[in-house]
């Protein structure tokens, strides 16, 4: 399967600050990828690099097999919705569509209008007078009207109420079902992401912490609860650990079978995984559990 997005050693520096450092990542076509990380982790910078809006300081970005920046034909195959849902406030929705039709070679305005009608967005209203949820739907419809092969969405859910979030994701998933669009979606709202995303890219302090298909990631991570131990066989990595002198709770990555019957083994949710990897790692490192192979 070919890659929709490929980062190799991607780094971006603003002045003296490295916003992204040495990120290497491959996103196969057709995936819906959650881009997760705390504020200031570099999510927006990464999306801007992928959209061809920023040039990497070092390293390489390839979108649909090509370098994004100077390539206009390629840009027409990428959809990008910035964080603030940029629309011209004095334009009506219909006028935004006319503008889109003139600026893009590939344009499917009819499907987009139909989508908006279904979520009750009036086409004759000026975009500046629409609600946040309606503006998000218009921005998404405009991006989807390009029939993009890769769609990049920067925090599209952040300002939406739960109903608007659900409607936004319904529209997005319909487009994925129909066109097989690859999507990268940055967000904090892990419970919403869990339903729609099948791939994960997690960054912290500009570095990639964890990436891959979500299902295998959830399968190989477990929460262990039980008496304090210095080592447990079957554990490849301790991601997070807390507890007392006697008892401990650890989120671990397994590479074998935990045979010790004293341990209760629980499945992890995407939220458990995200919080564990974004945390500072096992506290009290002097007494941390050692990973034992085999």
């Amino acid at each position, binding site marked *: 399967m070919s890659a929709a997005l490929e980062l190799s050693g991607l780094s971006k520096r603003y002045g003296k600050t490295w916003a992204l450092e040495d990120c290497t990542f491959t996103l196969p076509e057709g995936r819906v990828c959650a881009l997760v990380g705390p504020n200031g982790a570099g999510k927006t910078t990464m999306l801007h690099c992928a959209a061809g809006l920023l040039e990497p300081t070092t390293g390489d970005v390839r979108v649909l097999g090509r370098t994004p920046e100077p390539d206009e034909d390629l840009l027409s195959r990428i959809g990008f919705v910035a964080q603030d849902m940029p629309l011209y406030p004095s334009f009506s929705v219909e006028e935004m569509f006319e503008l889109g039709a003139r600026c893009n070679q590939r344009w499917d305005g009819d499907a987009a209008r139909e989508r908006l009608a279904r979520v009750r967005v009036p086409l004759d209203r000026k975009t500046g007078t629409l609600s946040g949820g309606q503006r998000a739907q218009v921005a998404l419809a405009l991006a989807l009207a390009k029939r993009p092969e890769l769609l990049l969405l920067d925090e599209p859910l952040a300002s939406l109420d739960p109903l608007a979030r*659900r409607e936004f994701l319904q529209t997005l998933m319909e487009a994925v079902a129909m066109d097989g669009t690859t999507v990268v979606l940055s967000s904090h709202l892990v419970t919403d992401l869990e*339903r*729609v995303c099948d791939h994960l890219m997690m960054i912290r302090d500009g570095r990639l912490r964890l990436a891959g298909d979500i299902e295998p990631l959830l399968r190989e991570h477990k929460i262990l609860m039980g008496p304090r131990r210095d080592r447990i066989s079957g554990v490849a990595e301790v991601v997070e650990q807390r507890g007392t002198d006697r008892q401990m709770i650890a989120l671990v990555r397994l590479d074998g079978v935990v045979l010790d019957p004293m341990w209760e083994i629980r499945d992890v949710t995407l939220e458990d995984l995200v919080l564990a990897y974004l945390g500072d790692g096992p506290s009290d490192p002097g007494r941390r559990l050692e990973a034992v192979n085999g």
Partner: protein
Amino acid sequence: MMIEFRLDPRTGVAPYLQIAQQVKNALRLDFLQVGDQLPTVKEVVGSIAINPNTVLKAYRELEREGLVQGRPGIGTFIVKGIAGPPPNAHLALRRSLMRWLKSANDAGLDAEGVAALFESAMRDSIEEETA
């Protein structure tokens, strides 16, 4: 549409299994029958906002079990029903469960202990089934 789905994020059951179970329950309760068409992937994701692959996986699972059949370009159809257990089966199972509960009680397990044991045994048995 013959059936709509609902996902419960708190059960810990994988979303694709929840969808497959809801189809099977509908077959058991007879409000889905042989010949009925399942909603299209687009209809499902447009209604419950989940990843299309989750729906495909659920339908593939049902196909593997021989309950539905995908017809390319047309849709996914029910080809086999699930016969419910004979009427006496519930009663007999209930009796043996009551006997088991009594022995658990005699062994000193309280209601919470029974629930925890049952849940973990269920998990193991589901894992064995799907393995």
